[in-house]
C-alpha cells in the first residue's frame, strides 16, 4: 500500500511543479503589463489633451513613462516577493519581442543593415577592448574584473558578463561589480542618448545604429532606440542583435587567453563552446524575417506580428525600470563604475563618429 501511494504521489509532484512555477509568474507579469500599459495610457492621454486644447506639448513616449514608473516603484516601495519571479520574465519578453520584430525586416534589409552594423561592431569591439583594458590598468582594477567590464561594454552587458564569468573562472564579486557598473551606465545612457540624438538631428537609421552599437544591455538599447522613434528602435535592436551574435567569439577569445595563463579551464570543443554561448533568439529573429520575406504572412498578419512585438517590448521596458535599484547600484563602489563610465563615454563618442561617417558614405 505504501509503495502504491509512493508511485501515485510521484507523478502528481512532477505535474504540479511546472504548473506551480507558471502560476508564480502571473503576479509579476501582470505588474509588468499594468506598468507598461499605464505608460502607454499616459502618453495617449497627454497627446489627446494637447490635441483637444491646441497645445504643442512635447511627445513623451510610453517607453519613458513605463521606465519612470518602474523606477519609482522599485526605489520607493520596492518589489514585493510575490511579484519577483514574474518581473524576471522581462528577459523573455525582450527576446520574444526581438524574434517577432523579424517580421518588420525583409531579409535583404537584414543582410544590408546587418553587414553594415557587423563591420561597425567589429570596429567597436576593437575600440572597446583597447580602451577598457587601458583604463582598467590605469585604475588598477583586477585583470579579470577589467576583462568582464571590457566584455560587458563591448558586447552585450549582463549576458556577456555572465557568460564570460563562467568561461574565465572570475570571482563572483568581480562579476557583480561589473554587472552593477554596466547596469548603472545603461540607465544613464537611456536618458542621455535620445537627448543627444535629437540635439544632433540624427536620422532614425543613424540614431538607431548608434544606440545599438553603444548602449550595452539589449533591453536598454531597445528602449534608448524606441525613446527616439519607433523606426529608430527597430534599427537599434537589429544593430544590438548583431553585436549579441558576436558574444561566443569574444568569450572564446578571452577563455583561451586566460587558459593560456593557466587561470581558466582549457576550452575543449570550440565549435560546441561557440554554439553554447550563441544567443539562440537571433536564429528565431532570422527565421521570422525569412518567413516574412517569403510572403508567408499577409499585410494584416504582418501588422499583428509587429504589434505583438511592440506589446512584448512594452513589458520589457516596464521591467527595465523595475529591475534598476539605485541604492544597490550605489553600494557597488566607485572605481569599476568610473572605469565603465569613462570607457563608455569614449565608446559612445567613437561609435557616434563611425555612424556619422557611415551615414555620409552609405546615405543612411
Amino acid at each position: 500500500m505504501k509503495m502504491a501511494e509512493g508511485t501515485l504521489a510521484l507523478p502528481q509532484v512532477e505535474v504540479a511543479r511546472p504548473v506551480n512555477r507558471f502560476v508564480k509568474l502571473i503576479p509579476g507579469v501582470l505588474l509588468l503589463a499594468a506598468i507598461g500599459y499605464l505608460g502607454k495610457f499616459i502618453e495617449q492621454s497627454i497627446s489627446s489633451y494637447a490635441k483637444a486644447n491646441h497645445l504643442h506639448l512635447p511627445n513623451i513616449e510610453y517607453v519613458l513613462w513605463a521606465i519612470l514608473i518602474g523606477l519609482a516603484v522599485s526605489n520607493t516601495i520596492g518589489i514585493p516577493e510575490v511579484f519577483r519571479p514574474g518581473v524576471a520574465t522581462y528577459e523573455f519578453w525582450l527576446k520574444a519581442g526581438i524574434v517577432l520584430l523579424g517580421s518588420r525586416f525583409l531579409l535583404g534589409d537584414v543582410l544590408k543593415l546587418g553587414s553594415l552594423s557587423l563591420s561597425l561592431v567589429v570596429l567597436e569591439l576593437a575600440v572597446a577592448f583597447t580602451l577598457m583594458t587601458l583604463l582598467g590598468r590605469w585604475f588598477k582594477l583586477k585583470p579579470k574584473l577589467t576583462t568582464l567590464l571590457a566584455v560587458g561594454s563591448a558586447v552585450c552587458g549582463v549576458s556577456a558578463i555572465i557568460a564570460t564569468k563562467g568561461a574565465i573562472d572570475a570571482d563572483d564579486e568581480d562579476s557583480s561589480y561589473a554587472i552593477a557598473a554596466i547596469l548603472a551606465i545603461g540607465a544613464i545612457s537611456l536618458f542621455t542618448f535620445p537627448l543627444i540624438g535629437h540635439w544632433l538631428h540624427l536620422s532614425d537609421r543613424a540614431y538607431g545604429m548608434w544606440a545599438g552599437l553603444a548602449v550595452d544591455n539589449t533591453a536598454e538599447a531597445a528602449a534608448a532606440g524606441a525613446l527616439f522613434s519607433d523606426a529608430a528602435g527597430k534599427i537599434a535592436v537589429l544593430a544590438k542583435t548583431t553585436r549579441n551574435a558576436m558574444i561566443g567569439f569574444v568569450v572564446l577569445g578571452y577563455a583561451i587567453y586566460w587558459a593560456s595563463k593557466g587561470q581558466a579551464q582549457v576550452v575543449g570543443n570550440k565549435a560546441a563552446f561557440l554554439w553554447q554561448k550563441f544567443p539562440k533568439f537571433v536564429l528565431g529573429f532570422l527565421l521570422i524575417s525569412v518567413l516574412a520575406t517569403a510572403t508567408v504572412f499577409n499585410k494584416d498578419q504582418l501588422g499583428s506580428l509587429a504589434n505583438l512585438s511592440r506589446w512584448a517590448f512594452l513589458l520589457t521596458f516596464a521591467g527595465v525600470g523595475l529591475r534598476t535599484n539605485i541604492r544597490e547600484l550605489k553600494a557597488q563602489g566607485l572605481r569599476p563604475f568610473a572605469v565603465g563610465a569613462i570607457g563608455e563615454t569614449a565608446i559612445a563618442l567613437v561609435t557616434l563618429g563611425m555612424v556619422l561617417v557611415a551615414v555620409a558614405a552609405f546615405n543612411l
Partner: protein
Amino acid sequence: MAEVSAELQKTNRWHLTADWWAVIASLVVAGLVKFGALPRIPW
C-alpha cells in the same frame, strides 16, 4: 558569496532558457496569426 554564485548560476540558466522559450513562443504565436486563430492584434 555562495548566495551570489547560486544567483548568478540561476540567472545564467534563465538566460539560456529564455532564449529558447522566446523562439518557441514566438513561432507558436506566428503560427496562430498565420492560420487565423488569433484576432487582429491592435497597438
